[in-house]
């Protein structure tokens, strides 16, 4: 065809991608890049969300408050009964100018001495830890669940279309509704989970306060999130599964490969790119955790389920300190970018080795 070989000068050819990408690039610039640059600008000010006064430039103060970390070593003074006691931390941090603005993040003992790690915003650091913990727990669980479901509905069993729809249905439900329902299921005294667990263990199981216990709350959010999201990954993996040639399985069967070997040496390699994609998408979604936490736990108990996005909304919108909220977002952006760059670097190196 003549149009396919339209003579284009090299200069024009260079221009062409921008022409086609233009509309999308315009949208991205307008709604993503520009707001981000504005947020970056905000981080150097003390702008508030509702204020008759324009914010003033405060330099790096927001970053300094967000990231400052320090430590304090205390030696015990024996009290009247001879027990070692330590001066109350707030009594030091609220009076000693060197520690002004710091709060305890975590504590440990070196012999008799008590070491406290202090931070100016321990809530943010805790939220950061929680978010990465959530991603670490939910990504393998959700992807494994999705893969299992995909294999199940692809196995040629009866009624698999119905099950495909059923497994996918949580994805189309609003996250807020799912969270409210699961909060009922997780209830300590009346919730389905505790009642079921106690029934099948003949009352031996002690009811867990899923959302009210600091060590159970995050796993509870993880389980619920994996259940809600797995259907989406299942669909992508299903598409990947159906792209694997049936001939390979037939050949393997003739060669005497058992089901595990077929899965290990045909399915998994055949899904490699799909799995990589699914892992990345799930990680990105996991790092943005907000709705479940906001609805089910409100970040509690005692900060056990706060996440970075939750902190950003809390500070930036609910406390109206928009410049600080923007700082949280920018720092988080930089951290995630670093993680992704690292991941890509490792991936490239491995590709070279292979």
């Amino acid at each position, binding site marked *: 065809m003549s149009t396919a070989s339209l003579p284009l000068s090299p200069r024009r050819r260079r221009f062409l991608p921008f022409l086609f990408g233009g509309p999308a690039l315009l949208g991205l610039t307008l709604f993503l890049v520009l707001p981000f640059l504005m947020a970056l600008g905000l981080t150097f000010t003390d702008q508030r969300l509702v204020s008759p006064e324009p914010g003033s430039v405060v330099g790096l103060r927001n970053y300094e408050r967000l990231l400052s970390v320090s430590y304090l070593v205390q030696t015990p003074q024996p009290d009247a009964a001879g027990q070692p006691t330590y001066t109350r931390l707030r009594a030091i941090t609220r009076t000693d100018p060197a520690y002004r603005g710091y709060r305890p993040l975590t504590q440990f003992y070196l012999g008799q001495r008590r070491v406290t790690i202090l931070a100016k915003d321990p809530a943010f650091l805790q939220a950061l830890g929680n978010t990465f913990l959530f991603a670490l727990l939910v990504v393998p669980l959700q992807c494994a669940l999705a893969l299992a479901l995909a294999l199940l509905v692809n196995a040629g069993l009866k009624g698999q279309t119905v099950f495909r729809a059923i497994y996918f249905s949580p994805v189309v439900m609003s996250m807020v509704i799912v969270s409210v329902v699961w909060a009922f299921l997780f209830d300590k005294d009346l*919730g389905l989970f505790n009642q079921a667990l106690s029934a099948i263990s003949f009352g031996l199981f002690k009811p867990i306060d899923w959302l009210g216990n600091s060590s159970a709350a995050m796993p509870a959010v993880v389980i619920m999130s994996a259940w809600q999201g797995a259907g989406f990954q299942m669909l992508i993996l299903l598409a990947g599964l159906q792209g694997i040639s049936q001939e390979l399985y037939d050949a393997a069967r003739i060669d005497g490969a058992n089901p595990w070997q077929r899965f290990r040496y045909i399915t998994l390699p055949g899904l490699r790119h799909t799995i990589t994609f699914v892992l990345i998408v799930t990680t990105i979604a996991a790092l943005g955790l907000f709705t479940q936490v906001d609805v089910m736990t409100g970040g509690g108990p005692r900060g056990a389920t706060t996440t970075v996005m939750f902190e950003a909304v809390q500070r930036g919108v609910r406390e109206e300190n928009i410049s600080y909220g923007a700082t949280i977002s920018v720092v988080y952006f930089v951290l995630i970018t670093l993680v992704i760059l690292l991941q890509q670097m490792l991936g490239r190196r491995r590709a070279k080795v292979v």
Partner: protein
Amino acid sequence: MPEWHSRIAALALCAVLWSCGPARKAERRTDLILWKNQAGLDEEDATREMIARFNAAQSKWRVVAQSLPQGGYDQSIVAASLADRMPCIVAVDSPMVASYAWAGHVRPLDGYVARATLDQVSRAAVGRYAGKVYAVGQFDAALAIFTRKSSLAETRTRVPTLDRPWTLIEFQTFLERLKASGRHRYPLDLATRDDKASWWTYAFSPMLQSFGGDLIDRRSMRSAEGTLNGAAARRFGSWFQALFEKGLVNRKEPDESAFVKGRAAVVYTGGWWAPDYRRYAGDDLAILPPPDFGTGVVIGGGSWQWAISKHCAHPEGAGSFINFLLQPSEVAAMSDRTGNVPVTAAGAARSRDFNPDGKSRIFYELMERFARARPATPAFAVVSNAFTFAMRDIMDGKDVADALDDAVDDIDGTIADNPALASGGGE
């Protein structure tokens, strides 16, 4: 075209023109746009009817109401104000009045609403900031203790009155006897399942005040040091923490109906639940004043209030609307329709439910005697959030003094960064 087609077309045209006729005449009125939060169906209907009555009562103004979802109401107001697209009349939640006044979204009511009218209104229903009145409510709400008369009798507990409310010890003994009876896993419901800062501040800062503390030093609105973390506040925090430790309160009830379903014997909540509770307990229902924790009973005051926006081109029209809705007949009509507490004595007297013999009179008495508005400071969002997080952490076992000190640091730090937040001075 057959003849009957054109005849129908002509008829239709006539109908359209005729129906436009009266409307066009009404265009001589000036439209006043009104924004309000989407509330319950009764309140929506009552407001619509009130506006219709106002529009019918005079020929100069026409109020056009628009309801906005409550979730994003605040953001809508801020966005509209920044874009100079504010409506004329706005409903404002009472703790936000100071913030809106400070930010210049609303203007003082001076000169638009008669001082004599405002003087009739219960104190907590008037939104003041920096010595000026910016908003006024047509109704308020009241917090109370709901329980069954039979529960009081079984535990041999004195029935508290408005003049002689329970002391802390009486209240505590009542709860512990209920717990000991074994019939209630958690005898008291404090509605802590609602984790919004608005509820926690509305419900529990009055208790803090009754103990002798406060959210912030109201004389200066500059610092919370000593008021939110003083000895009284620490006593309040320890008591609150112990409620959960001793299993007297469930940190999160699975639903809102612990009392109606018989799980809880006592509930501390607002008068808006009274209809459900009456249906459930009938004559056995006891509506009681909250306990006096040391410095007198305190309940939260101030509900949604009406204000005139800064950009309103016809503030006198908005003023006449506000004057209209504060008439005793309008106040009474709104309260009888919605169950909200009337804010004027004359309105209460004309009301079916809130007159001295009415079934809901107790809520009017509670509001009139004990309601105190939340601190009128543009820093309220920070104050409320800091208090709520401290109380939630205390509920979950954090050291009381540490939690309160942290809340004070959050509040004082924000005001130190933005001294303008305290520029309105004290109450």
